[in-house]
């Protein structure tokens, strides 16, 4: 479209922005703006003024971000997610490699890990609270398990599905068991592992918020509810927007990570 515009006689030369801004890229922006406008107009016209509006959320940003409480919430929740996913992923990778490479261990563990993987982990929150009490440790435990399960499953699948020729090469050139596990199986499974960690983050975020609400642990999820309960809907949604930005950012980072650690995997 931009290229066509360039050719129109007398039209001023277009910059990089207009070339980048194609109809395809513009469409979601238009749809989003239309939705926000509809939201704004409808709430102003029909609903009480404590109900959140897009402009209200924007206005609530500076005051919310100015509070020390906001930043302690962010540090608590995102810190727990990052730490928990890290611990869960490392544990998942180690167990997953062993499960993938030692058939007998897979027989013992696979059924349980896969059953837990299929279970909504929120169901475990009451049990974890009984163990550790209404403490941040409950959130940490749930996040660790949330990341551990998908990473263990994908790592096990990835390390089991190695091309036979790689194993032959390893044997031929004198690879011992640990060389095969960590020098062949693990790198071959990297694309699977990154996918597992991405899933671990998605579940970790969801479950961290759920635990905060269910166990009244201070954090972003808790504040979403307290702010909302105090009729600060706009401030509540500031937290939601920040969580969404974090989730989208992590996903983008994971896609990049996969391209960096496994450039051969395509995509």
């Amino acid at each position, binding site marked *: 479209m931009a290229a066509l515009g360039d050719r129109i006689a007398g039209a001023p030369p277009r910059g990089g922005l207009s070339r980048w801004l194609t109809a395809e890229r513009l469409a979601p922006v238009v749809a989003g703006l239309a939705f926000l406008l509809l939201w704004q107009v409808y709430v102003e016209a029909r609903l009480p003024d404590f109900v959140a509006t897009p402009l209200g959320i924007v206005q609530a940003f500076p005051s919310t971000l100015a509070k020390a409480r906001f930043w302690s919430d962010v540090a608590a929740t995102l810190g727990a997610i990052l730490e928990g996913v890290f611990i869960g992923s490392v544990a998942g990778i180690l167990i997953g490699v062993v499960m993938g490479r030692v058939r007998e261990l897979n027989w013992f563990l696979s059924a349980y890990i896969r059953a837990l993987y299929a279970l909504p982990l929120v169901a475990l929150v009451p049990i974890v609270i009984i163990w550790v009490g209404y403490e941040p440790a409950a959130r940490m435990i749930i996040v660790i398990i949330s990341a551990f399960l998908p990473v263990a499953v994908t790592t096990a699948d990835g390390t089991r599905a190695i091309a036979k*020729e790689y194993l*032959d*090469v390893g*044997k031929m050139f*004198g*690879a011992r068991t640990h060389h095969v596990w960590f020098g062949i199986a693990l790198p071959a499974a990297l694309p699977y592992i990154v996918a597992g960690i991405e899933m671990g983050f998605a579940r970790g975020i969801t479950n961290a918020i759920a635990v905060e609400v269910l166990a009244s642990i201070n954090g972003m999820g808790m504040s979403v509810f307290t702010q909302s309960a105090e009729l600060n809907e706009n401030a509540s949604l500031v937290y939601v927007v920040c969580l969404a930005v974090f989730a989208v950012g992590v996903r983008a980072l994971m896609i990049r990570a996969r391209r960096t650690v496994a*450039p*051969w995997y395509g995509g």
Partner: protein
Amino acid sequence: MPPSDDPRLVVDNASLHYGALDVLADVSLTVQSREIVSIVGPSGCGKTTLLRCVGGLNQLNGGEIRIDGQRVEKPLPMVSMVFQHFGLFPWRNMWSNIAYGLMLRRTPKAEIARRVDAAIEMVGLKGFEKSYPHQLSGGMQQRAGLARALVMEPKLLLMDEPFSAIDAQTREQLQFELLRIWDRRPTAMMFVTHSIDEAVLMGDRVVVLAGRPAHVRALRRVDLPRPRERSVVTSPEFLNLREQVWHDLFGQPTDGETASRGRGVRSAAGRK
């Protein structure tokens, strides 16, 4: 057993079966220390299986394989293999793929660098050290596969249809480069192929493996001069040998196979 002239590799009455399926039956052959022995046979006849047994990747059910007198029960360090589908690790760059075997042996770093660089030079991959396999053509990947095997300075080199996954022109180029490399440092080589031309071109002897289970149907000495130049493929000796091997494979009705079936696949077999 030849008592005086000890061959590097002895395959002695090798037999192998998977369950009820007999794959190899009493296969015997030898490879001398500076000799290339081609193993030719139809696809799926068991020649790769035989090579894998020599490499220690598969186990025999009967008979035995000895390399320099040592019985093969697992891969031996003095043996290297070049794989049909290259078998390069996609997460290692070319240099580090070639260094793989030496790294596993904890060779000193300086020595690894020296030997890997020399091997890269030898196979003509200079300048591609940092490239990853997915960035290289099939021909270049197999050059790296060859360098990875050569850098180990093996006493026996096993070639598992190394050029069959490479386009025809590059294949021809690589065949002559391998011959040139071998001329500089002759070593014992077992070269498995399904191409009669390639078997005759590479080998000092050609073992024709055929039948079900596979057995040695014929053994041909190739008295073509070395170093082998490109012109050799048009010489009457070459064409004559090619014809003989073809007849070994398809010409004689043995084991209930008919001569007419052999003639029917002549053109296909000749071109493969």
